[in-house]
């Protein structure tokens, strides 16, 4: 084979590879890259979704910097995320540890714990709307929680959980954690089952205590899984939306606003598509930054 034939063969080979990749690449460009570019582009315009677009440069971003409602919504999403990180994930980890032991009915528990995450957020919203219903009929509390509190001798705790600004966001955070902990549970359980049992056996022979085994074997081996669960929790909780819509509709004044409800409101209620895109760009950037920071911190923890 002379040099020319060889070059032709390489070209054909490359072309062939390129042609195989082309459909996937084109789909990626059309459905991911282009909308992403379009969103950034629109954030520099004043546009009502239809009709003429007016280029306004960075005006949307400037306005966003001073928009207290937007930054409050960011704090609300942060609070929901914090509740999930502090309570939901440790609980999921603890239950995964328990189900990894030789306990009775562990398959049953696995199924039960995994039911909430497979439910639609709308369904979860409906269920919890019934549980948290603050109304009364014929002197009886309609909502399960208030009925339970009242009949258990705690009438002073009966409350409008979603209608009071002091409790609304925490209630939403708890419902969100209730739904979300099943994912963490399954991922932790899968991670625990990949740890070589011989390591535990060796630790037992060496006389290591349960705590030592946990801190020196389980935790280090589980760090990559914990990192993934933390990142997914942050991304999932920061973007909570449907659950809030299902629980409090357009929100309890602005006490239950989160970034996605603000973006939705900018598009749906005030028809400010450009502003909504600017909000989405800032929000996306913050999420990417948080994910990177979490990864860096976790990498450092692994090295330590």
């Amino acid at each position, binding site marked *: 084979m002379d040099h020319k034939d060889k070059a032709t063969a390489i070209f*054909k080979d490359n*072309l*062939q590879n390129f*042609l*195989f990749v*082309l*459909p996937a690449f*084109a789909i990626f460009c059309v459905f991911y890259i282009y909308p992403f570019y379009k969103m950034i582009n629109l954030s520099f315009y004043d546009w*009502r*979704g*239809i*009709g003429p677009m007016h280029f306004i440069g960075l005006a949307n971003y400037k306005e966003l910097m001073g928009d207290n409602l937007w930054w409050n919504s960011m704090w609300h999403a942060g609070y929901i995320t914090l509740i999930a990180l502090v309570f939901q994930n440790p609980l999921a980890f603890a239950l995964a540890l328990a189900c990894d032991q030789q306990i009775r009915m562990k398959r049953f528990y696995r199924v039960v714990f995994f039911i909430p995450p497979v439910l639609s957020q709308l369904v979860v919203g409906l269920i919890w*709307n019934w549980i948290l*219903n*603050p*109304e*009364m*009929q*014929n*002197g009886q509390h*309609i909502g399960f929680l208030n009925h339970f509190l009242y009949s258990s001798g705690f009438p002073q705790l009966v409350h*409008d959980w*979603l*209608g*009071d*600004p002091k409790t*609304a966001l925490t209630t939403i955070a708890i419902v969100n954690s209730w739904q979300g902990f099943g994912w963490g549970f399954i991922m932790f359980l899968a991670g625990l089952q990949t740890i070589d049992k011989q390591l535990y056996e060796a630790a037992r022979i060496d006389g290591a205590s349960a705590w030592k085994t946990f801190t020196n074997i389980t935790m280090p081996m589980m760090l990559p899984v914990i990192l993934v669960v933390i990142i997914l929790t942050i991304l999932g909780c920061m973007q909570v939306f449907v659950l809030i819509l299902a*629980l*409090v*509709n*357009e*929100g*309890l*004044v*602005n006490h239950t606003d989160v970034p996605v409800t603000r973006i939705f*409101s900018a598009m*749906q*209620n*005030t*028809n400010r598509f450009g502003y909504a895109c600017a909000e989405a760009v800032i929000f996306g950037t913050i999420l990417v930054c948080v994910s990177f920071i979490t990864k860096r911190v976790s990498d450092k923890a692994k090295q330590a």
Partner: protein
Amino acid sequence: MLMRQSLTICSFFIFGLLAGCSKPPSPSNNILLWHWMTDRNDTFQQFAQEYQKETGVKVTVELFAPSDSYSQKIIAAAQANVLPDIYGILDKKSIVADFIKAGLVADLTGAMEADGGAWANSLFDKALSDRSFVAGNVYGVKPGIYGVPIDVTDIQLIYNKKLLLKAGIKEPPKTFDEFIKDAQALKRVGITPFVSGWGELWLLDCFTSNYAFNIMGEEKIFATFRGEVKYTDPDWIKVFSIFAELRDKGVLIDGIVTKGNKYAEQDFALERAAFAFNGSWCVNVYHDMNPDLDYGVIPPPPISTAYPLKIWGSSGSSFVVNGSSPNKDKAIAFLKWLTAKEQQVVLARETYNLPSNKEAISVISPILEEFAKGMDESTHPNIWPINEDPSVSEAFDKGIQDIIIGEKTPQQVALDVQKVKDLKMSKGKN
């Protein structure tokens, strides 16, 4: 061999893409209609079949629900210029105006005024004016009729006769003071007085504007929108104070500020509250939830005698014809057929909605008739010469929620709303 395979895959892909970039549609005997009305879908499908039998024109009816998703779909389709022949715009009048200016909505004035205005005269004026633009309108739209109402709706106060009697109330209230007294009587016998879906801001906005019309009259409201009257004006404080009074007297159901209208409808249908603020579509909903529910309809009781209390009433659902559709005439003919007496009678009977055709009103149920009476005293943002900026409206409605949950006083809310208004006005000047 591999090369041939990869070329085949690519060819399929490219042909697929090219198929999406088809030629502009040409005139045909098929009309495509997109709607959002789950309760009317079966009837529409049935109409489509009948229409094809009668005229040979095939109407394809496609349902996209819920209405929020439908709205987004319409906006996206408008941007991509793939709107169907007939569709509805569930948005503010300013957005409807944008659609018209973009050539996406056909001017129906000619068809409406043909034969001495036969089609226009057959429909309720209020419903038609809701879909019309008058000369010199602020949106800069050429005057004309741009939509066809297929039903009309108004929003009033509904009362449960049985629960009122239980509290010793024989007649529904005629004034706001009587309403508050009745609410106290209801509370004394353990009945929740009032429910509404005020988690949906538009419904709260509607209730508020009813009383704003009653307290200060429309001129002052429009002057406020123009920035000539401040929200801190005593009349506006009076409007905000209504909600403080409703809260303090325990009139409102618990959790009203986060309650969706579907839940509010359920509460009223299951007799958990004696009064509800809801639209005429509720007749259909209550019939499904509790066919034995015994209720009546009145306008919200006025708080002042200074000006008449106006209720919101307009075309409930309406369709427009795609301005760039090659089947424009066929689409208009179908809508004319759909709003004729025979079809409107069927729609009213099957779906318990108020028909848009005046002649069809004679066959409606007594409760719908009570709603129909309210159309004379109705108004709607779509027929107002000016509307408030959406950001100010949002601050206004959220402010009222603030009053209801006891976080702010009417005066504080008035100041907050005025701040947003001032900001918008200063931006407008720049």
